[in-house]
Protein backbone atom coordinates (compact mmCIF):
# COMPACT_ATOMS: atom_id res chain seq x y z
CA UNK A 1 0.00 0.00 0.00
CA UNK A 2 1.24 3.49 -0.82
CA UNK A 3 2.05 5.32 2.41
CA UNK A 4 3.91 8.41 1.18
CA UNK A 5 4.48 10.21 -2.08
CA UNK A 6 6.32 13.40 -2.99
CA UNK A 7 6.59 15.34 -6.23
CA UNK A 8 9.00 18.17 -6.86
CA UNK A 9 9.02 20.41 -9.89
CA UNK A 10 11.71 22.91 -10.84
CA UNK A 11 11.45 25.42 -13.68
CA UNK A 12 13.92 28.03 -14.94
CA UNK A 13 13.13 31.04 -17.04
CA UNK A 14 15.35 33.85 -18.24
CA UNK A 15 13.96 37.11 -16.88
CA UNK A 16 16.71 39.22 -18.41
CA UNK A 17 20.30 38.81 -19.59
CA UNK A 18 21.57 38.83 -16.03
CA UNK A 19 18.62 37.44 -14.04
CA UNK A 20 17.39 33.84 -13.93
CA UNK A 21 14.03 33.19 -12.32
CA UNK A 22 13.72 29.75 -10.71
CA UNK A 23 10.47 28.23 -9.51
CA UNK A 24 10.28 25.27 -7.18
CA UNK A 25 7.21 23.36 -6.07
CA UNK A 26 7.07 20.55 -3.53
CA UNK A 27 3.92 18.57 -2.91
CA UNK A 28 3.73 15.47 -0.77
CA UNK A 29 1.50 13.56 1.64
CA UNK A 30 2.31 16.00 4.45
CA UNK A 31 3.50 19.28 2.90
CA UNK A 32 2.89 21.57 -0.02
CA UNK A 33 5.02 24.63 -0.69
CA UNK A 34 6.55 26.75 -3.40
CA UNK A 35 9.50 29.08 -3.76
CA UNK A 36 10.77 31.63 -6.26
CA UNK A 37 14.45 32.49 -6.58
CA UNK A 38 15.97 35.33 -8.57
CA UNK A 39 19.55 34.53 -9.42
CA UNK A 40 22.14 37.05 -10.56
CA UNK A 41 24.21 35.95 -13.59
CA UNK A 42 27.05 35.30 -14.14
CA UNK A 43 27.92 35.50 -10.43
CA UNK A 44 25.29 32.87 -9.43
CA UNK A 45 24.29 34.93 -6.39
CA UNK A 46 20.73 34.76 -5.03
CA UNK A 47 19.18 38.20 -5.35
CA UNK A 48 15.86 37.30 -3.75
CA UNK A 49 14.14 34.26 -2.32
CA UNK A 50 10.43 34.15 -1.55
CA UNK A 51 7.98 31.35 -0.90
CA UNK A 52 4.81 30.19 0.70
CA UNK A 53 3.41 27.10 2.37
CA UNK A 54 0.06 25.78 1.23
CA UNK A 55 -0.14 22.68 3.43
CA UNK A 56 1.79 21.86 6.57
CA UNK A 57 1.54 19.82 9.75
CA UNK A 58 1.78 22.25 12.65
CA UNK A 59 0.73 25.85 13.45
CA UNK A 60 4.44 26.72 13.79
CA UNK A 61 5.44 25.73 10.26
CA UNK A 62 4.34 28.91 8.45
CA UNK A 63 6.67 31.00 10.60
CA UNK A 64 9.54 29.29 8.76
CA UNK A 65 8.74 31.41 5.69
CA UNK A 66 10.49 34.32 7.47
CA UNK A 67 13.79 32.44 7.25
CA UNK A 68 13.74 32.50 3.45
CA UNK A 69 15.16 36.04 3.45
CA UNK A 70 18.41 34.50 4.79
CA UNK A 71 18.92 33.03 1.33
CA UNK A 72 19.46 36.45 -0.31
CA UNK A 73 23.15 37.02 -0.98
CA UNK A 74 24.10 33.34 -0.94
CA UNK A 75 26.30 32.25 -3.81
CA UNK A 76 25.92 28.88 -5.52
CA UNK A 77 29.32 27.35 -4.88
CA UNK A 78 30.80 24.43 -2.92
CA UNK A 79 29.17 24.29 0.53
CA UNK A 80 26.02 26.05 -0.64
CA UNK A 81 23.70 23.19 0.31
CA UNK A 82 25.04 22.99 3.87
CA UNK A 83 24.59 26.76 4.27
CA UNK A 84 20.96 26.49 3.17
CA UNK A 85 20.34 23.68 5.65
CA UNK A 86 22.00 25.67 8.44
CA UNK A 87 20.33 29.03 7.73
CA UNK A 88 16.88 27.96 6.52
CA UNK A 89 16.43 24.24 7.16
CA UNK A 90 17.30 23.70 10.80
CA UNK A 91 15.99 26.96 12.27
CA UNK A 92 13.03 27.16 9.84
CA UNK A 93 11.83 24.33 7.65
CA UNK A 94 13.94 21.49 6.28
CA UNK A 95 11.50 20.96 3.40
CA UNK A 96 12.00 24.55 2.26
CA UNK A 97 15.77 23.91 2.42
CA UNK A 98 15.33 20.69 0.45
CA UNK A 99 13.38 22.55 -2.24
CA UNK A 100 15.92 25.40 -2.47
CA UNK A 101 18.73 22.88 -2.86
CA UNK A 102 16.69 20.99 -5.45
CA UNK A 103 16.38 24.19 -7.48
CA UNK A 104 19.98 25.31 -7.11
CA UNK A 105 21.58 21.93 -7.80
CA UNK A 106 19.95 22.19 -11.25
CA UNK A 107 21.91 25.30 -12.14
CA UNK A 108 24.53 23.48 -14.25
CA UNK A 109 22.15 21.44 -16.42
CA UNK A 110 19.97 24.55 -16.75
CA UNK A 111 22.91 26.67 -17.95
CA UNK A 112 23.89 23.90 -20.38
CA UNK A 113 20.33 23.71 -21.77
CA UNK A 114 20.16 27.47 -22.22
CA UNK A 115 23.55 27.62 -23.92
CA UNK A 116 22.69 24.62 -26.10
CA UNK A 117 19.53 26.33 -27.41
CA UNK A 118 21.45 29.51 -28.08
CA UNK A 119 24.39 27.83 -29.87
CA UNK A 120 22.29 25.22 -31.66
CA UNK A 121 20.49 27.95 -33.57
CA UNK A 122 23.78 29.21 -34.94
CA UNK A 123 25.30 25.76 -35.44
CA UNK A 124 22.93 22.75 -35.53
CA UNK A 125 25.94 20.40 -35.56
CA UNK A 126 27.30 21.57 -32.20
CA UNK A 127 28.14 18.80 -29.72
CA UNK A 128 27.18 18.76 -26.06
CA UNK A 129 30.89 18.75 -25.10
CA UNK A 130 31.39 22.02 -27.01
CA UNK A 131 28.35 23.51 -25.26
CA UNK A 132 29.71 22.49 -21.85
CA UNK A 133 33.06 24.04 -22.74
CA UNK A 134 31.32 27.34 -23.52
CA UNK A 135 29.35 27.18 -20.25
CA UNK A 136 32.56 26.54 -18.32
CA UNK A 137 34.17 29.59 -19.93
CA UNK A 138 31.25 31.83 -18.99
CA UNK A 139 30.86 30.34 -15.49
CA UNK A 140 34.34 29.07 -14.48
CA UNK A 141 33.14 28.52 -10.92
CA UNK A 142 31.02 25.49 -11.94
CA UNK A 143 34.11 23.34 -12.51
CA UNK A 144 34.97 23.51 -8.83
CA UNK A 145 31.68 22.07 -7.68
CA UNK A 146 30.71 19.66 -10.40
CA UNK A 147 33.41 17.11 -11.22
CA UNK A 148 31.07 15.24 -13.57
CA UNK A 149 30.91 18.09 -16.03
CA UNK A 150 34.60 18.87 -15.61
CA UNK A 151 35.60 15.29 -16.33
CA UNK A 152 33.31 15.21 -19.35
CA UNK A 153 35.31 18.07 -20.77
CA UNK A 154 38.56 16.26 -20.24
CA UNK A 155 37.49 13.34 -22.47
Amino acid at each position, binding site marked *: *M*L*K*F*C*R*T*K*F*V*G*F*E*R*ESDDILKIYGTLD*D*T*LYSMQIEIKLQLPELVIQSLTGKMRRF*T*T*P*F*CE*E*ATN*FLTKGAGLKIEPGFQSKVKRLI*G*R*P*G*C*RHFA*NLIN*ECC*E*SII*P*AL*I*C*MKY*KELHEENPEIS*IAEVIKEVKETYPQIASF*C*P*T*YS*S*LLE*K
Partner: protein
Amino acid sequence: MVLTYTKNKEVHVFEGENRTSEIRARMYDMCFEGEVTIKTSKTMEILEINGKIFRSFSVQCFESLKLLEKLKGRRIAGGFTKIVYGLIGRTCPYLASLVMECVEGAILGATVGPLEKALPQLWKTPEKFTKKALISFMPQMKNSCIAYTMEDDR
Protein backbone atom coordinates in the same frame (compact mmCIF):
# COMPACT_ATOMS: atom_id res chain seq x y z
CA MET B 1 7.74 33.35 -21.01
CA VAL B 2 8.95 29.91 -22.15
CA LEU B 3 10.71 27.74 -19.58
CA THR B 4 14.35 27.23 -20.43
CA TYR B 5 14.81 24.25 -18.14
CA THR B 6 12.49 21.88 -16.24
CA LYS B 7 13.00 19.04 -13.81
CA ASN B 8 10.50 16.65 -12.26
CA LYS B 9 11.24 14.30 -9.42
CA GLU B 10 8.86 11.93 -7.71
CA VAL B 11 9.14 9.50 -4.83
CA HIS B 12 6.70 6.78 -3.83
CA VAL B 13 6.95 4.80 -0.61
CA PHE B 14 5.05 1.52 -0.41
CA GLU B 15 4.50 -0.52 2.72
CA GLY B 16 5.46 -4.18 2.31
CA GLU B 17 5.22 -7.30 4.45
CA ASN B 18 7.01 -7.53 7.82
CA ARG B 19 7.24 -3.72 7.99
CA THR B 20 9.50 -3.54 4.97
CA SER B 21 9.25 -0.55 2.64
CA GLU B 22 9.82 -0.18 -1.05
CA ILE B 23 10.86 3.29 -2.14
CA ARG B 24 10.99 4.40 -5.77
CA ALA B 25 12.48 7.71 -6.86
CA ARG B 26 12.35 8.82 -10.46
CA MET B 27 13.71 11.98 -12.00
CA TYR B 28 13.79 13.50 -15.42
CA ASP B 29 15.08 16.79 -16.67
CA MET B 30 16.33 17.95 -20.05
CA CYS B 31 19.68 16.13 -19.73
CA PHE B 32 18.94 13.06 -17.61
CA GLU B 33 16.30 10.49 -16.81
CA GLY B 34 16.75 7.80 -14.18
CA GLU B 35 15.24 5.78 -11.38
CA VAL B 36 16.40 4.24 -8.10
CA THR B 37 14.46 1.61 -6.12
CA ILE B 38 15.33 0.67 -2.57
CA LYS B 39 13.84 -1.95 -0.29
CA THR B 40 14.36 -1.37 3.44
CA SER B 41 13.77 -3.49 6.53
CA LYS B 42 11.87 -2.25 9.60
CA THR B 43 15.24 -1.12 11.02
CA MET B 44 15.96 0.88 7.82
CA GLU B 45 18.61 -1.52 6.60
CA ILE B 46 18.92 -1.50 2.81
CA LEU B 47 17.90 -4.98 1.68
CA GLU B 48 17.86 -4.29 -2.05
CA ILE B 49 18.91 -1.39 -4.24
CA ASN B 50 18.64 -1.01 -8.00
CA GLY B 51 19.04 1.81 -10.45
CA LYS B 52 18.22 2.51 -14.08
CA ILE B 53 19.38 5.34 -16.28
CA PHE B 54 17.30 5.99 -19.35
CA ARG B 55 19.11 9.11 -20.58
CA SER B 56 22.38 10.84 -19.68
CA PHE B 57 25.16 12.44 -21.65
CA SER B 58 27.68 11.43 -19.00
CA VAL B 59 29.10 7.95 -19.53
CA GLN B 60 30.21 7.97 -15.90
CA CYS B 61 26.58 8.02 -14.76
CA PHE B 62 25.93 4.67 -16.45
CA GLU B 63 29.13 3.31 -14.91
CA SER B 64 28.06 4.50 -11.44
CA LEU B 65 25.07 2.16 -11.41
CA LYS B 66 27.24 -0.76 -10.28
CA LEU B 67 28.34 1.27 -7.21
CA LEU B 68 24.80 1.14 -5.83
CA GLU B 69 25.43 -2.47 -4.79
CA LYS B 70 27.92 -1.17 -2.19
CA LEU B 71 25.04 0.44 -0.28
CA LYS B 72 23.31 -2.90 0.22
CA GLY B 73 23.37 -3.95 3.87
CA ARG B 74 23.93 -0.39 5.14
CA ARG B 75 21.44 1.25 7.47
CA ILE B 76 19.82 4.61 6.76
CA ALA B 77 21.11 6.55 9.76
CA GLY B 78 23.48 9.41 10.66
CA GLY B 79 26.40 9.69 8.24
CA PHE B 80 24.58 7.97 5.37
CA THR B 81 24.50 11.14 3.23
CA LYS B 82 28.29 11.38 3.41
CA ILE B 83 28.63 7.74 2.36
CA VAL B 84 26.32 8.24 -0.65
CA TYR B 85 28.03 11.41 -1.87
CA GLY B 86 31.46 9.91 -1.22
CA LEU B 87 30.59 6.82 -3.21
CA ILE B 88 28.52 8.16 -6.12
CA GLY B 89 28.32 11.94 -5.81
CA ARG B 90 31.58 12.67 -7.60
CA THR B 91 30.89 10.43 -10.58
CA CYS B 92 27.13 10.94 -10.93
CA PRO B 93 25.49 13.63 -8.78
CA TYR B 94 22.15 12.79 -10.41
CA LEU B 95 22.26 9.20 -9.19
CA ALA B 96 23.40 10.27 -5.72
CA SER B 97 20.51 12.71 -5.60
CA LEU B 98 18.05 9.92 -6.49
CA VAL B 99 19.43 7.70 -3.70
CA MET B 100 19.07 10.59 -1.25
CA GLU B 101 15.51 11.15 -2.45
CA CYS B 102 14.76 7.52 -1.55
CA VAL B 103 16.37 8.08 1.87
CA GLU B 104 14.26 11.20 2.49
CA GLY B 105 11.20 9.22 1.33
CA ALA B 106 12.02 6.36 3.73
CA ILE B 107 12.34 8.78 6.66
CA LEU B 108 9.19 10.73 5.80
CA GLY B 109 7.31 7.51 5.12
CA ALA B 110 8.19 6.40 8.65
CA THR B 111 6.89 9.67 10.17
CA VAL B 112 3.53 9.69 8.35
CA GLY B 113 1.97 7.06 10.65
CA PRO B 114 2.87 8.72 13.98
CA LEU B 115 1.92 12.16 12.61
CA GLU B 116 -1.45 10.88 11.39
CA LYS B 117 -2.15 9.72 14.94
CA ALA B 118 -0.78 12.75 16.80
CA LEU B 119 -1.92 15.68 14.67
CA PRO B 120 -5.73 15.24 14.78
CA GLN B 121 -5.53 15.11 18.60
CA LEU B 122 -3.38 18.23 18.75
CA TRP B 123 -5.43 20.22 16.19
CA LYS B 124 -8.65 19.34 18.10
CA THR B 125 -7.57 21.68 20.89
CA PRO B 126 -5.39 24.34 19.20
CA GLU B 127 -4.78 26.13 22.51
CA LYS B 128 -3.04 22.99 23.74
CA PHE B 129 -1.08 22.60 20.51
CA THR B 130 2.27 23.54 21.95
CA LYS B 131 5.77 22.67 20.81
CA LYS B 132 6.23 20.76 24.05
CA ALA B 133 3.18 18.60 23.30
CA LEU B 134 4.36 18.07 19.73
CA ILE B 135 7.85 16.99 20.85
CA SER B 136 6.32 14.58 23.38
CA PHE B 137 4.48 12.85 20.49
CA MET B 138 7.51 12.90 18.17
CA PRO B 139 10.64 13.01 20.39
CA GLN B 140 12.89 11.89 17.50
CA MET B 141 12.10 15.16 15.71
CA LYS B 142 13.38 17.41 18.53
CA ASN B 143 15.46 20.36 17.23
CA SER B 144 14.99 19.30 13.58
CA CYS B 145 13.10 22.46 12.54
CA ILE B 146 11.15 25.44 13.91
CA ALA B 147 8.14 23.33 14.94
CA TYR B 148 10.19 20.97 17.08
CA THR B 149 12.54 23.51 18.65
CA MET B 150 11.61 25.11 21.97
CA GLU B 151 12.38 28.83 22.22
CA ASP B 152 15.00 28.11 24.91
CA ASP B 153 16.83 25.67 22.64
CA ARG B 154 17.40 28.16 19.81
